[in-house]
């Protein structure tokens, strides 16, 4: 089971790099959606089969894999943008950063004191790498959609870390957290939509009116 899990985490880490390297927004959104779906499956793998876990998993997959990407795609189409042009951190440096970060995450995870049953999984390095990727996207991209994707990847990373605790935390809490995250991204999606309407663009370089 650990092997399956590791494959999935490895897939998620690879999707990080895809997200970092794709200059076209549809590709980015697709990578994020896929990562969300992959993550959604994991609790089912780790937990004993339970209707509640299944429900959570379905909700996750539906939210992260379908609803949010759809929202983002709609906004993207409305704003009539396809590409991330002239990002703050270029694609190649982003990729290098992401790759370096992934290696560093693996190294760091080796150094961290982990329980024996977690030491063999890629959960911690995958989580750290995703968080890092999320930050790179948040910091390095100029299109609001790309940033939202970055934020999603950041959350995915945290979700990965949360899987370490899946046996300890009560499901109610887990569900609440998931719900919050989903609603959060949903709200972000709405705001992106509104910004698109108010500013007629999703380029965050235009969103610097509020300043000292």
């Amino acid at each position, binding site marked *: 089971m650990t092997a399956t899990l590791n494959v999935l985490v490895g897939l998620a880490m690879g999707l990080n790099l895809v997200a970092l390297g794709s200059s076209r927004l549809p590709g980015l959104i697709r990578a994020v959606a896929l990562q969300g779906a992959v993550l959604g499956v994991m609790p089912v793998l780790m937990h004993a089969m339970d209707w509640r876990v299944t429900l959570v998993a379905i909700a996750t997959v539906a939210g992260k894999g379908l609803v949010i990407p759809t929202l983002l795609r709609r906004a993207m189409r409305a704003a009539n943008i396809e590409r991330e042009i002239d990002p703050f951190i270029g694609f190649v440096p982003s990729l290098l950063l992401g790759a370096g970060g992934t290696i560093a995450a693996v190294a760091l995870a080796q150094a961290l004191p982990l329980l024996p049953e977690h030491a063999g999984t890629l959960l911690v390095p995958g989580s750290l790498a995703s968080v890092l990727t999320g930050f790179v996207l948040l910091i390095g991209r100029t299109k609001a959609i790309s940033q939202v994707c970055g*934020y999603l990847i950041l959350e995915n990373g*945290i979700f990965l870390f949360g899987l370490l605790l899946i046996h*300890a935390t009560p499901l109610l809490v887990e569900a609440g957290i998931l719900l*919050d995250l989903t*609603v959060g991204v949903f709200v972000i999606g709405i*705001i992106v939509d509104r910004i698109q309407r*108010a500013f007629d663009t999703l380029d965050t370089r235009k969103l610097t009116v509020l300043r000292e």
Partner: protein
Amino acid sequence: MNAYLLIIVPMAAAALAALWPGDRTRPWLLPITGAAHVVLSVWMLIAPPAVSDAAWLGFDPLARAMLPAVSILFLCCAVYGLNYLRLRTERPNRIFVACLLAVLGLLSAGHMARHLGLLWIAVEGVTLAAVPLLHFNGTPRAYEATWKYLLVGGTGIALSLLGSFCLGYASIHGGGSGDLTFHALAAQGAGLSRPWVLAAWVLLLAGYGTKMGLAPMHTWKPDAYGEAPAIVGAVLAGGVTTVAFVALLRIRAVVAAAGVGPVVDRTLLVIGLFSMVVAALFLLGTRDFKRMLAYSSVEHMGILAIGAALGGAGVWAALFHVWNNSLTKGALFLSAGNIRRAAGARTMDEVGGMAAITPRSAAIFVTGMFAVTACPPFGPFFSELRILRAAFATGNGIAAAVFLGSLLFVFFGLTRVVFGIVDGRPRTAARKVRERFPETMGVILPAVALLGFSLLLGLATPSVLIEAWDAAVIQLFPVP
């Protein structure tokens, strides 16, 4: 049971508001719910219910020491909001009223949460529920502010989730069951895995610090406070920051129980002082009086952090300061809102002579400014003096010096802006403004009430509050 009422009543009211048909009558839900909430919280302040250790939610001493302040602030804001929404009939208020009530419910939940995950859920809920409030004005500026609030705040709150997981993992790694109630975590004490505890503290401090608005995570604050309606600013500055501070206090107690108290206190002290210095520097130059309030809030969050870093006496003073900050900042926001509406602008370059145009609001604004800069006899003076005393008592002389220096520069900055707006030659004819924005009792009295409460806190602190703060300090610093 009553404790749950504090959450259920506003949530139910929020649901009701979402369903209520009439835009004109819906705002009445605000003061009604606020009053009910005040009655409940004050009742429980006076007669605290027993809370079992294992409870996930409960009106425990810490909640008792802080929640009534939020409750009172909310009531005053609600009364103000009733009148405010009457002036804003051009915008539908269904979502606004519902979300504001939901914020109150989630704030109550956050204050009373005794479980790490629950706490996070409540705080994230507040964050999300506040979003429609922020862009109520519907201007591009408002959306920009909301966007930044969401992403910076969201990142912060995500980090605090990571921190919560780390703390949970510390428990599991230390051989615990992974029970994330604060009581269980603190009981595990030194059994918690130290590296994970430290990592958790860093992430949680950064995360909830973002919510509080500690520098350098404060960047969303001026934008959000500047663009949101006054009432939202007041609730954010007096309520949301408070709940984040409660979270930090609870976590600090756990982390200190794990045996890394001194390290943790040092980080709190440094980040608090840094926030004060940054706020002072920003205040020296800012020209927008609503953004000014945001930086002032950053400064006060710094003060709270410093208080929390200074041991029992400091935490006591910080609890005291939470009340003072909520109430005086509320009065400032409400009067600033009046001035903003009357003047139609909000920088020193465009606004002037408000003492002639809106004399009452200007008077409240000036009084509130003096109150918030620790001029006696208002509450903040007493709490800040106590923090200073605690700093000297714990031998943090340099910190005290930085604290005082920042207070001085903050005073310079605030007085510069406030008197720039209040004094001088009015830019618009007073008569014209009075037609557009009558200074009715409805928009004056709430602010006066808040100031009056701040004055009362300073001159004659109710003994029940003193007792509540004592109890909260005992809860946070259990005598072994």
